[in-house]
């Protein structure tokens, strides 16, 4: 079964106009997300699986190429994983 991704609960998420700021109080690291990234990050709540997020993205941004959307999402999430900004629900 696919593990559900969840935003790291230790990260401070601040939404601004057209972007969001992720701040890790442990390390002081900051990452800025664009509007789409911020939307995806908010969907990582342990309730939406990756398929549901792809559906939501396609609906919100009128994307027709599902495969490309899935690929972009995987790439984005890998970046968040590498920076310990998301984890897996056990």
């Amino acid at each position, binding site marked *: 079964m696919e593990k559900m991704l*969840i935003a*790291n*609960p*230790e990260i*401070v998420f*601040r939404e*601004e*106009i057209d972007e969001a*700021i992720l*701040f890790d*109080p442990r390390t*002081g690291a*900051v990452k800025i997300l664009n509007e789409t990234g911020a939307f995806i990050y908010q969907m990582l709540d*342990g309730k939406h699986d990756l398929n549901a997020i792809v559906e939501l993205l396609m609906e919100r941004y009128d994307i027709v190429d599902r495969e490309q959307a899935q690929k972009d999402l995987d790439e984005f999430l890998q970046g968040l994983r590498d920076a*310990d900004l*998301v*984890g*897996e*629900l*056990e």
Partner: protein
Amino acid sequence: MTAFELIVKGRSMIPAFCEGDILVVEQDCADRIKVGNVVVYQSPEAEGWVVHRVTGIEYPNGAMCLVTQGDNRAIADEMVHPDWLVGVVVGRSRDNRCVPVPRWQERFWLHFAGWFRRVRRIRLRLLRIVMFLLAPLFSARLIPVKRVRIGDRQLTVVFGRVVATREETPQGTIEWVHPLFRRIKRVK
């Protein structure tokens, strides 16, 4: 006049500033500092910058020194020499613009931070009682406890808050449990 942005790390200025708040700090304004302002300084003996409120200005040996204290701290810091000053907090950054911290707000926290600390202590005592009462609900699995794996760390999350962490390091396992949850076996 130069200014820069700074992200708050730590909880010593709660409730005025919380972790992750972005502050706008103005440099080169030591001569305009007033009691109630929040300053950023670096003590030569400590690592990192400190963001604390000025609670007094004194002149030992004729030179100006600042008395500072975190709003969430019970005791004052050591005297801050003007050479240690990095700048003064003039506002918060919201949507890429500076929202100034009004003077009345600085005065308010200067006078009432102590009351808020007392309220927080009372709240902590009440929470201990609440946790004692909730313990059976945790045992009966009526309160959801989530485990999240972030790299080498395992976080235990209750009501969206991290209440315990476990980290595998080359030196061994480092565990932390929030003091309110230490009696609850399920979060360990």
